């Protein structure tokens, strides 16, 4: 990242402001949606959908994952696989 030229970084800053606005907006949307008191399943799906969008915004732009190297992607793919296994864990006990 360190060898970016000045113009590129100025361009990046515009992106960061844009991402910030999007995140703020999505936060308000999440709170608004919660106000409707939807039944559990739709409420969960919407809330997690918005959270995932916000999360991927932060990860892609703030954490520069958008243009990261292959080795980092490999480690993240590995972690996501075992993260999913971890989240499936509660289903294991009730099955």
């Amino acid at each position, binding site marked *: 990242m360190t060898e970016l030229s000045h113009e590129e970084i100025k361009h990046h800053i515009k992106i960061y402001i844009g991402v910030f606005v999007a995140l703020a907006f999505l936060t308000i949307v999440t709170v608004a949606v919660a106000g409707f008191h939807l039944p559990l399943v739709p409420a969960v799906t919407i809330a997690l959908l918005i959270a995932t969008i916000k999360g991927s915004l932060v990860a892609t732009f703030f954490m520069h994952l958008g243009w990261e190297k292959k*080795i980092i992607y490999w480690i993240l793919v*590995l972690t996501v*696989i075992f993260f999913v296994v971890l989240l499936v*864990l509660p289903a*294991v*006990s009730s*099955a």
Partner: protein
Amino acid sequence: MSTASAAHLATAEHHYEDLPFWRKYIFSTDHKVIGIQYAVTGLLFLFFGFCLMMLIRWQLAYPGQPLPLIGNLFNESAMVGGIMLPEFYNQLGAMHGTIMVFMGVVPLAVGGFGNFVLPLQVGAADMAFPKLNMVSYWLYFVGGVIMFASFFAPAGAAQSGWTSYPPLANIASVGQTLWLLGMAFLINSSLLGSINFIVTTAQLRAKGLSFYKLPFFVWAQFITAFLLLLAFPPLMAAAVLQLMDRLAATSFFMPSGLVVNGVVSQLSGGGNPILWQHLFWFLAHPEVYVLILPAMGIVAEVIACNTRKPLYGYKAMVDSVIAIAFLSFVVWAHHMYLTGMGTKMSSFFQITTMIISIPSVIILTSLALSLWGGSIRFNTPMLFAVAFLPMFGIGGLTGLPLGLASADIHLHDTYYVIGHFHYVVAPGTIFALFAGVYHWFPKATGRRMSEALGKIHFWLSFIFINGVFMPMFIQGLAGVSRRLYDPTQYAHALPTQPLNVVMSWSAWLLGLSQIFFIINFFKSIFWGQKVDQNPWGATTLEWTAPSPPPHGNFTKPPVVSRGPYEYSVPGRKLDYVLQSEPAEAPVAGAGKVK
């Protein structure tokens, strides 16, 4: 390697020499010093854990009889008139497991051998983050001290088994809180250590040393580091939850409506003890692979070097190790078949357990086939490495009946389970660690350990270790439960009680036979036979550095152009070719390693 010349290396070297003693040996950032610190502390805790076991064996062989000689050394809460109390027996059992796994074998196999040998074998000057490496040793040390001190806590150390199942662990004495704190330190020590291993192997390999030219030992440590990195945090989370349960009276693992010795519990309830078991075994199964993979790495190095021929099926072994790493995350619930789990889930975990047995068989078979066509030298490291194969074989095979849920109904939580995992860990991993100590002792000290004492140590240990663990299968089939303070209470355990006497005597004699190793170890540091930098005629990079290697390891950063096990290459005078030997024009017949 940047163009920094050897001169620059020399100045770094010179600067290191005049560091004060406590910076060079106590808070050292040299991976070799840290490796030796881990190894020595690990060996001490292994011996301490062994002594706890020898006490347990007395109570199992002669239940209720006063312990001769040292019986009255213990205070009232442990032994009354030399007769062991059940609480103390449970402490010995829980701490024997915890100390041997988390403070003995893992620090020795991953901390000791990994730290000392891995940077040398990848041709690096040191670990990627030397200060982080020092921090992870001292976190381990503090964790070890807390665990050791917990014996002197009021009502003693943790006594709910090394698995600490709640609600028993939640209502246990303060020793359990110290156990959780000690575990927090040990977990974070292994976590930071694994980051070091991954970055060193990925980033600091010598020029030309591609991943598939890495010695199998490096592969084993690299994959073990991923297991540590991704499997330990869930146990950290579980430890946080149990600490909250014990200190903040939350009820993560405490269901509602509990009545503990006659008193209705005032806790809010709503928790579930099975949650701890899931989180614990989510770590503990990758943890048992953390115990065995470095051992397989050591055995592979020793076998390749002492059969004077390349390993058979190196690529298949590497792929199997990767497969084991993935599968180890989806088998954990085969420890929980009898917790009321449904048949759908138990079938899933039986299938994954059977699948994971295949890569282990592949690795074991490849190691055995590597003997075929070799010229086998039976020195002490090779004796231990060869003995590892059948012993780990028994450990692996006896895992099958436990992996099948129906057979596990009878064998669950019996001595069959104890025999199974001890065969994998004791004559398995610990024999491999002995092989590693005998094999790399010359590299660490410049002197060899005595072969005579080594062979006595091997044969005595081999005989007595089987004397301890083989009868366990007979007791297991008879249905004798584990963790019983006094097995003679049960009629179905009475016929196998004479076996307990045989096993206890074998255990004590096994303890005595370690004296040959201890004498050999300390004697050889000062008076061992001096050797050059490659006494075994091995090929991997650590044997190109002087013994003991200076700070910064290699005077000239090595360049690698050959496979890890170029032994008995036709058309050459010496029967080994160092990995860092420049590749001359391809000579007919001297094909690259497959």
